[in-house]
């Protein structure tokens, strides 16, 4: 590893690092706008100018005569990077002054305020006054950029990250630079808005408040937002994300860079697809049908529900559910079928599976429906919308619209020995009791499933939304959406990532982990890390989870995805 010296701090860098990355390793920030790790280097904003030199083997130091862009300049053994010399500081201050010449001072109503690189860099590297004596150039805002994207034209610093994104990552090339010199603006071709399925990323890429998300626009000042590290559950790519919330309301999802998962971006389906979690149709209260609920007159200490049962409906619901399950298993263990959805976390699937199998090995565990839509959608697209050649894929939206099929299958394989689908069991029509765990978006229960369930003696539905099943269920347990749950998802490539809860569930709904902790009579609160460790020690295919803390990027399960599937 080459050693470089950044402002007198010696640090080991990667031979592929540019000066920005190498300096970052020394804890030194080199400000930049146009450079982005996932995009081509254009070195045009000139914000990252630094002084670079070399420490020769004999110890002598030779500094280059000019400022050089940190983004474009590679490092090697002995490279010296200076970011705090008068020359560098003067250049940074002037570049910022130039960028701000015509930049409107509308931070007060700008969505980017608080996470704006013009603000931050001006604060750190700029100066308070502009010497511009002339009126600022004003340009019209462009709401036509995309269904989800607005351009506040005069805030743009012409870094062209957005244009390069549509040319290099999405391949759709809707964005362009128009005109020349100080007249330049970003735009789309008339009637050809930037609506590709990755378009929302240009908002994140924009280092200033020029490209804004219409969905988020003027909804919340960003400094009120808390960011939970999570995983997008929209498809089996499992993009690392931040869930940004305030007071239990999710305002936006943003990609969280993860080289092991998706890279830097996420698709719009995932980005804007979280609204269902605040849908007013959500199940918010446990419901027991009259056939299973404890008659009012029988309630009391003898039933063990305690006085809280009137304020906390879960006390009765859990107790009744547990009793009914045990009863049903006693009657016909083989006829008891638990359906584990690919939206469950590994921990949730484990809690339920291990408990049921402990009650009776003959209980059947099956995999819930795995939603598939179309085929894998790969980027960058070619000029005719064709997918890229193999080996040139930069982003994939997967047809499998569930986050954790592989994780749940690993649990099923361990406890059931094989993966059987709910459809196969339904076809046999030999189930006498069902425990459905959903977690899907609204409308997943189709006629086939509904008919296949038949008329069981016990039907338990733990889900987010009412469905034909929940309508006729004996017990309905309102569960938690992805934003409300802690746990592990295993993506298409066998990457196990930890998601953390961002918000509380609506009404009395509860995250599945908490429901299952109580149902399975485990002591203490649900803690994903400790359950992960437990799973790692027990479930062979998931032994990598033993470390408990999966870190920001997650952990690859030992076996590659294919082997895991065949294990």
């Amino acid at each position, binding site marked *: 590893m080459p050693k470089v010296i950044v402002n007198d701090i010696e640090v080991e860098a990667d031979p592929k690092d540019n000066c920005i990355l190498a300096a970052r390793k020394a804890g030194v920030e080199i400000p930049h706008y146009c450079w982005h790790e996932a995009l081509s280097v254009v070195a045009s904003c000139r914000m990252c100018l630094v002084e670079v030199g070399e420490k020769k083997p004999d110890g002598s130091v030779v500094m280059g005569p000019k400022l050089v862009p940190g983004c474009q300049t590679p490092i090697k053994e002995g490279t010296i990077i200076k970011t705090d010399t008068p020359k560098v500081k003067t250049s940074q201050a002037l570049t910022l002054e130039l960028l701000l010449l015509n930049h409107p001072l509308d931070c007060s109503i700008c969505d980017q305020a608080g996470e704006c690189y013009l603000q931050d860099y001006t604060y750190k590297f700029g100066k308070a006054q502009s010497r511009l004596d002339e009126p600022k150039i004003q340009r019209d805002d462009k709401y036509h950029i995309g269904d989800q994207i607005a351009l506040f034209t005069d805030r743009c610093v012409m870094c062209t990250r957005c*244009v390069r994104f549509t040319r290099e990552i999405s391949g759709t090339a*809707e964005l*362009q630079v128009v005109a020349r010199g100080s007249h330049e603006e970003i735009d789309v*071709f008339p009637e050809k808005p930037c609506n590709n399925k990755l378009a929302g990323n240009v908002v994140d890429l924009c280092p200033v408040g020029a490209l804004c998300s219409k969905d988020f626009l003027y909804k919340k000042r960003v400094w009120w937002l808390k960011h939970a590290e999570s995983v997008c559950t929209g498809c089996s790519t499992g993009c690392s994300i931040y869930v940004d919330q305030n007071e239990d309301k999710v305002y936006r999802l943003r990609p969280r860079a993860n080289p092991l998962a998706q890279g830097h971006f996420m698709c719009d389906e995932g980005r804007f697809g979280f609204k269902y979690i605040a849908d007013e149709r959500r199940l918010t209260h446990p419901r027991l049908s009259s056939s299973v609920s404890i008659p009012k007159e029988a309630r009391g200490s003898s039933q063990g529900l305690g006085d809280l049962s009137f304020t906390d409906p879960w006390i009765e619901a859990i107790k009744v559910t547990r009793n009914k399950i045990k009863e049903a298993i006693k009657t016909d263990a083989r006829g008891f079928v638990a359906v584990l959805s690919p939206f469950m976390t590994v921990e949730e699937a484990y809690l339920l599976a291990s408990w049921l199998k402990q009650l009776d090995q003959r209980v059947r565990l099956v995999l819930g429906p795995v939603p598939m839509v179309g085929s894998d959608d790969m980027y960058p697209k070619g000029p005719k919308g064709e997918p890229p050649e193999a080996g040139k894929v930069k982003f994939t939206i997967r047809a499998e619209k569930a986050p954790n099929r592989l994780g749940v299958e690993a649990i099923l394989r361990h406890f059931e020995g094989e993966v059987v689908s709910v459809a196969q069991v339904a076809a046999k029509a030999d189930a006498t009791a069902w425990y459905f765990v959903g977690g899907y978006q609204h409308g997943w229960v189709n006629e086939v499933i509904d008919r296949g369930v038949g008329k069981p003696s016990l039907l338990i539905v733990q889900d987010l939304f009412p469905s034909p099943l929940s309508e006729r269920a004996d017990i309905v347990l309102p569960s938690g959406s992805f934003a409300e749950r802690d746990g592990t998802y295993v993506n298409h490539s066998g990457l196990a990532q930890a998601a953390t809860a961002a918000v509380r569930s609506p009404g009395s709904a509860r995250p599945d982990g908490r429901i299952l902790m109580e149902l399975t009579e485990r002591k203490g609160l649900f803690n994903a890390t400790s359950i992960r460790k437990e799973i790692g020690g027990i479930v062979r295919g998931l032994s990598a989870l033993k470390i408990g803390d999966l870190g920001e990027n997650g952990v690859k399960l030992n076996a590659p995805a294919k082997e895991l599937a065949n294990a």
Partner: protein
Amino acid sequence: MSELSENAKKVITDHLGRYPSKQAVTLPALHVVQEERGCVSNRAMQEIAEILELSPAQIHDTMSFYGFFRTEKDPLGKVRIWICRSLPCMLRGGEELLAELCDRWGIQPGETTADGKITLELAECLGACDGAPCMLVNDELSLCMTADQVENQVRGMP
């Protein structure tokens, strides 16, 4: 109906063999279309984009950089004349010539006379500083111009 003429399509196809990339035919394609139509319409850009396997935004991106090409919102007059205003011409009355023509024709640089005949443009150095102030009429240079000479020359054109 195609927006590109048969000739334009032929020119574009002929040029495809000259370069290892299709995108390189962008400027030749824009030139032939503007020469025929006095502008490059959005539809023409889309058709060029299709032939060159680019997005229309990429065509317009390039086109707008050069300032030479006009969109359908802003087509050229029959004759396009450019008056040079760079230093060698400015020193010998280029700016005054341009201002005088603006006054006479009642238009600003970049605009076309009401009869659609003349588009008057300002130019940066036309490369005829030995004949300052100079003028470009379509793509032919004329040297040492006065406003009267410009008018005579342009009036004489078909």
